């Protein structure tokens, strides 16, 4: 085991996940490649969504990969930061919207 859980060099080894389960791994990567192709959304839009999700799931590999990818696809700093704010707003909103449950419960228990 490494001395830290995350090693930047491991990002380049992502493909190795097919080693122990090639069929599922290959299907995953084929699907992955299909998802990120230009479609109803542009490649840049998809990179920005991936960047936002990377922050929401707090995956350092994904943040590394999709910061680079967003730049490559032509996004600028403002767009990238706005994407992260979208993730933050949803994560914050998800916490806050549960306060309705808290309020309901508190009202139920209170005079």
């Amino acid at each position: 085991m490494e001395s830290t859980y995350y090693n930047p060099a491991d990002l380049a080894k992502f493909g190795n996940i097919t080693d122990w389960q090639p069929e599922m791994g290959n299907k995953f990567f084929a699907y992955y490649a299909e998802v990120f192709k230009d479609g109803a959304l542009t490649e840049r839009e998809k990179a920005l969504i991936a960047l936002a999700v990377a922050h929401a799931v707090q995956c350092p590999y994904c943040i590394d990969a999709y910061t680079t990818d967003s730049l490559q696809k032509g996004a600028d700093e403002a767009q990238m930061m706005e994407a992260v704010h979208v993730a933050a707003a949803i994560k914050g909103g998800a916490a806050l919207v549960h306060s309705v449950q808290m309020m309901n419960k508190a009202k139920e228990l209170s005079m």
Partner: protein
Amino acid sequence: MIKSLQARHAPLADTGYQLTVLTEAEAAGARLPAFGQKLRETGLLPLRPTALQTMQINVGRMCNQVCKHCHVDAGPDRKEIMTRETMQLCLDALARTDIAVVDLTGGAPEMNPDFRWLVEQISALGRRTIVRCNLTIIVANKKYHDLPEFFALHKVQVVSSLPHFSAGRTDAQRGEGVFEKSIRALKMLNAVGYGQPDSDLTLDLVYNPSGAFMPGSQAGLEREFKQRLGREFGIVFNSLLTITNLPVSRFLDYLLESGNYEKYMQQLVDAYNPTAAANVMCRSTLSIGWDGQLYDCDFNQQLDLLVSGPAPKHIRDFDEALLQDRTIVINQHCYGCTAGAGSSCGGTTA
């Protein structure tokens, strides 16, 4: 405004030192396969010319901008420019060939006092001119304000760098205020018909990444650029050409200074594409330096890598047959043209 590497007396101003950095992978802490080995594995070594299609003339290193990624190390402090006598030698050689396109580059080629004369002579020979215009030169001084009309008169194809549709990313690479001036210049070019739907005046934009990453899809970026420049500024253009930054001169300096050199080179090596390698522009181009010396491409020119073997080394001795028989000089920087979708002065190659 930053100064050129030469004016700063930076070690990388020495092309020999650049080649040492590029070839001594161990010194940079990385082990990268030799470019020649990659070519051999894909059946392209020795790299030989195909039909000669383009004469690319670098008319000088003088420029009104000092871009951070410039492989020419151009700037206002560079004084090397081509004389009319050397231009005449280029024209004499051109007249003896079927080369259809003359690609004028620099520096800012328009700053050469004989630039307009050269374009007129190329037109008189019935050949097409491409000018690699940095845009800001058009608004830099009153004497350049009529360049759009001059270009239009000679049906010059204008190819202009604009690394991003946002001011921040453009100025980060090309200097403070460059974006705003570029937009003004693009509007002037549009006004005389460049890039307009029913016009025969071609305006292409060049995208090269403002950082240590490769360009994304040329078609995707073109769509984004057209939307954003159209919506926000009413600007139209024909094609967007994506160009990968090669680790030469100031971009090499940036890579080393920012600690991105090894990763960037590895990225290029990992993305080696044999189709792009087969279509590299050096196979169909002759590059001429400001002093008339001959090179396989503008990057080799900036690394002082002259054409090899018995091929003539100066335009005064131009001999197409001997040049076509040469072996193209390669080095580690060539990975930049063969990565991903490939890269050339005309954009992607694969």
